[in-house]
């Protein structure tokens, strides 16, 4: 690629020399017979230059678009593998802007800027050398003119780097606002807060506007500067050159060639401004991207495989905090779930139930103690193997934009139709068969939308179908009506008898699914026992689960 570029530059530089030959030979010295061969030489050179450019671009097109696509793919893969902790911390718009804006900035620079940067610099150097050889005193003038250009360029670069970083970050912030306005649209609508959200967006947009204008100001000064210098040099060259011709130290032809060559420098110098700016932006973009690519995933897959897991789950002195400087959310958790037993987890709002269950499939890693499945520390297990052994139905059911079947067979892609039907029945989700395309109907955001309870039941069917060794149900019946709930519970009883289960519950009926109940209070498990025992002996438990009447009047 670069060799064709260099050849191209060489060819384009030789054209002015042929021009000189024509002016000095046929015209001045009246050697007409040279005109035709020289013209053909020029033609040949010109055409080969075009071919070289074409070849280069053609080759480059594939390389650059592949590079962009590969980077984007890598970024995506990386982001998918980064833990929840990372995703909570990072604004979604910042991620998005990296995948889109930053990558296209890099593509543009690689496809256009980089090459021109190299070509331009090459051209500048070569031309300057040629100029020196043509007539050195004038060549030195040109050389001196290069000094301020280099100095200012370096200074500009530093400033521009800072400001383009600011612009890109602000673009990311704005993207976050935009994303929220789209995802939260229904809430905004329900409250009629269009103006409010618009104002917030506006603040971000105006800030971006301010920084962008600042960037424009900086660039415009620099670009103008790059235009002034060559022109001023031209003035001097013209003056001195004409005087030199007058003294007959050079021929007229040499002066013309000199000026022609020199003018061919104006554009490269001028476009150097744009290209340098582009290079800075590409550099900041690359920085922003490597911030993600270089993030070490704190949750790495371990070496051990879990073969035929039985589902013996143990929490040993587990503690957890979300960040090193915050307080423990969970501490001193000790639990032992024999294979096939089910534990109900009961606790007040915000007591850490969801957090506790998220530790098992390593959505987060414990910060103290350890969790074992069949004797293996979960951190030593291969992630894939661990996560197929543990299936969860979360409190907010996420359906992906794909068919119902694909959505529920996520945890077990080889499930048969009979398995699928069975899971649907357990979750009371047979309505899915009556959708327009049956189980092939696409649901999720880009497909058909379902009611809250319908979605929740599909998410439940998904967890059940996975036939995991450990099944986690995090308040999965909250959107169901009482009758449906009772039916689901009945069916779940069978499922849970075969696997180890953790059921997060706010209501007695769900708690009854379990063999044992653990009460989570103040970040640790204070009581373990059967529902009846706890109800009888633990006031805090009674308060959480008791039928309401007594409390309301209490």
């Amino acid at each position: 690629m670069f060799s064709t570029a260099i050849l191209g530059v060489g060819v384009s530089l030789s054209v002015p020399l042929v021009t000189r030959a024509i002016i000095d030979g046929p015209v001045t010295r009246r050697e007409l017979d040279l005109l035709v061969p020289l013209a053909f030489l020029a033609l040949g050179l010109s055409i080969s230059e075009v071919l070289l450019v074409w070849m280069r671009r053609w080759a480059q097109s594939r390389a650059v678009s592949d590079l962009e696509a590969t980077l984007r793919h890598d970024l995506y893969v990386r982001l998918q593998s980064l833990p929840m902790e990372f995703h909570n911390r990072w604004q979604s718009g910042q991620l998005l802007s990296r995948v889109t804006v930053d990558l296209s900035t890099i593509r543009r620079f690689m496809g256009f800027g980089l090459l021109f940067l190299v070509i331009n610099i090459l051209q500048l150097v070569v031309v300057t050398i040629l100029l020196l050889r043509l007539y050195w005193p004038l060549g030195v003038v040109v050389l001196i003119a290069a000094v301020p250009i280099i100095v200012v360029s370096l200074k500009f670069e530093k400033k521009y780097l800072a400001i383009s970083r600011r612009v890109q970050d602000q673009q990311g912030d704005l993207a976050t606002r935009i994303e929220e306005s789209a995802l939260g649209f229904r809430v905004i609508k329900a409250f009629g807060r269009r103006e409010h959200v618009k104002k917030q967006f506006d603040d971000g947009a105006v800030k971006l506007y301010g920084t962008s204008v600042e960037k424009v100001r900086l660039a415009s000064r620099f670009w103008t500067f790059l235009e002034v210098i060559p022109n001023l040099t031209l003035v001097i060259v013209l003056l001195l050159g004409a005087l030199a011709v007058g003294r007959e130290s050079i021929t007229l032809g040499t002066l013309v060639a000199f000026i022609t060559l020199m003018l061919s420098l104006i554009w490269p110098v001028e476009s150097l401004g744009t290209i340098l700016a582009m290079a800075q932006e590409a550099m900041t973009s690359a920085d922003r991207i490597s911030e993600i690519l270089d993030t070490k995933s704190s949750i790495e897959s371990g070496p051990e495989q879990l073969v035929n897991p039985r589902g013996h789950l143990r929490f040993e002195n587990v503690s957890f905090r979300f960040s090193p400087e915050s307080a423990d959310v969970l501490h001193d958790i000790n639990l032992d779930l024999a294979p096939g037993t089910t534990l109900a987890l009961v606790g007040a709002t915000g007591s850490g139930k969801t957090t506790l269950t998220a530790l098992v499939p390593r959505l987060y890693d414990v910060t103290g103690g350890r969790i074992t499945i069949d004797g293996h520390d979960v951190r030593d297990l291969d992630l894939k193997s661990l996560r197929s052994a543990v299936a969860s139905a979360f409190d907010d059911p996420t359906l992906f934009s794909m068919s119902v079947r694909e959505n529920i067979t996520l945890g077990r892609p080889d499930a048969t139709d009979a398995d699928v039907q069975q899971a649907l029945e357990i979750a009371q989700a047979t309505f899915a068969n009556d959708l327009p395309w049956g189980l092939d109907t696409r649901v999720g955001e880009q497909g058909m939308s379902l009611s809250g309870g319908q979605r929740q039941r599909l998410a439940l069917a998904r967890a059940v179908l996975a036939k995991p060794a450990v099944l986690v149900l995090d308040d999965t019946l909250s959107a169901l009506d009482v009758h449906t709930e009772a039916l689901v519970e009945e069916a779940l009883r069978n499922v849970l008898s075969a696997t180890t289960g953790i059921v997060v519950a706010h209501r007695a009926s769900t708690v009854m699914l379990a063999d044992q109940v653990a009460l989570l209070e103040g970040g640790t498990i204070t009581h373990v026992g059967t529902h009846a025992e706890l109800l009888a002996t633990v006031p805090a438990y009674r308060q959480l689960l008791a039928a309401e009447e007594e409390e309301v009047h209490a």
Partner: protein
Amino acid sequence: MTTTQQTPPPPSDDEPGSRHDAQVIDREESWRGYAEESDDELSRATTLRLKAQSRKLLGELLRPYKKMIWLLVAIVVVENAARLAVPYLVHLGIDKGIPPILAGEGNQTLITVVVAVLASALIQAFARQLFLMRAGRLGQTILLGLRRRVFDHFQRLSPSFHDRYTSGRVISRLTSDVDVIDEMLETGFDGLVTALLTLVGTAVLLLTLDVKLGLLALLSFPVLFFLTAWFRRRSQLVYRRSREAVALVIVHFVESMTGIRAVQAFRREPRNEQIFHGVNDRYREANLESFRINAIFMPSIKGVGNITIVAILAYGGWQAYHGHVTVGVLTAFLLYLRQFFEPLQDISQFYNTFLSASAALEKLSGVLNETPDVPEPKEPAKPAQHARGHLELRNVKFNYVDGVAVLPGLDLDVPAGQTLALVGTTGAGKTTIAKLVARFYDPTGGQVVLDGIDLRKLTEDDLRERVVMVTQENFLFTGTVADNIRFGKPDATMDEIVEAAKVIGAHEFIVRLPDGYETAVEKRGSRLSAGQRQLVAFARAFLADPAVLILDEATSSLDIPSERLIQRALRTILADRTAIVIAHRLSTVETADRVIVLEHGRIIEDGSPDVLITDGGHYAGLHQAWEDSLA
């Protein structure tokens, strides 16, 4: 907590925005499932309409700055005049300045010429600086205007549009498409204007310098014109494709990052990668193709330039030999041609961004041409200052999909101040009723009437002031807990916020957060537990203080003590306002004045909870089951 969304109604034919945006699925990949699609091939008529629309949009965007634009054009003319003067002056210097020196007549002429070159260089610099600065600022101003306009329009469109269009596409329009336009404004504008002026200016100059040589040079123009036309046609297609492709990339990206927890827990990464690879690859192909078109276009321009130069060189050399033109003229000629063709290549790069931006502009104008399915009234009714909250549904019919009536004809009268509970099996249509009352959709038959006024006659502002809904999804925004509560009433004082949180029992947990009310909730509230999110969402609805409050499963994730607290609060909160409470937890329902049991969109029982419990009907059954579930 969960999102209740509606299936897109069959795409109506005349929606430019959605039509060509419609997602393309690979039918062979059946696991993607089937959904309503519209094809993305553009008919000729659509293409023309798109162009007309985006041109109109462009006009609207530029109109307010007409004067400024003319000023900029003037500046750019000056700049280019100065720029073009330089080679001409050089020609003068060589032709007129040097002979006197050679003849020993002094260098007066040369000095004059040099001073003139200096002057034009300075003028050029000054004008350029002015132009770059002004044009840059103008570009940003226009961009800001465009951002505001598109953002606002998206927020004005109805939920049914958003159901269909999907959030990913909204995001892609407002980020990627706007950015492309930004890029054009930053680099392209300048380049294009300069190119056009150089084109015209050079043509004129060439002709004045020497007619014959000029005509010879002008022979290249038609070829250039033809090339450019070809380039434009091809690029337009490719850029449209690339805009659509990037939208799909964004749609998929946003979806996977939003659901990252489920993605990881269910090991969906490989499948996601596969999908992402597909959309990414399509985008790559579009990019590749645009690169390739450029790879043909740019060298071709250069080729035309080179051949012209050689022709001029040969012919000019011949002419000079015969003394028909001077060496100076020939030199100037060659300089002009160079000056013309050199930037033209880079300018074709700018032209490129320009075309890419017009594809983006088409997309945006498509969106701006969408009208809300729930339109603002032409002649809004003037509701009384203080809404009473008397709500009536008169023979309301509704369906999302043709032929499947969700509400086959509902009559319901909720007197002002009444608390109405809706219960029923999942999928019975409760949320649908709530959404009709909040006018997310208009009924397909019948009327929804508030205080005697059809909702269709109320302005959006009047309506939202009176009716507020807490949806099943309790979306929290980036910001602090206080910010999120304040969302219910943007001008609320801190005291009011704390008061609201206290009333619904959220105060305790909030003050225990590291920074209390100023704790950031992080991405979509992930800093909080499900129940805590629900409490915050409740507090913000309470703060909004509407005449009609709709609570759709607003307590489903709470523990029983918190729920009880809310119930107690509800007794006071709902005492003087109309409320529709949807809940599967019958404990919440018991605070209601009246209960309606819904099945398949029909009312099967209606009465006060105390009465319904005893009459052995559906509600009694439900209630019994509920009591049992608590035991």
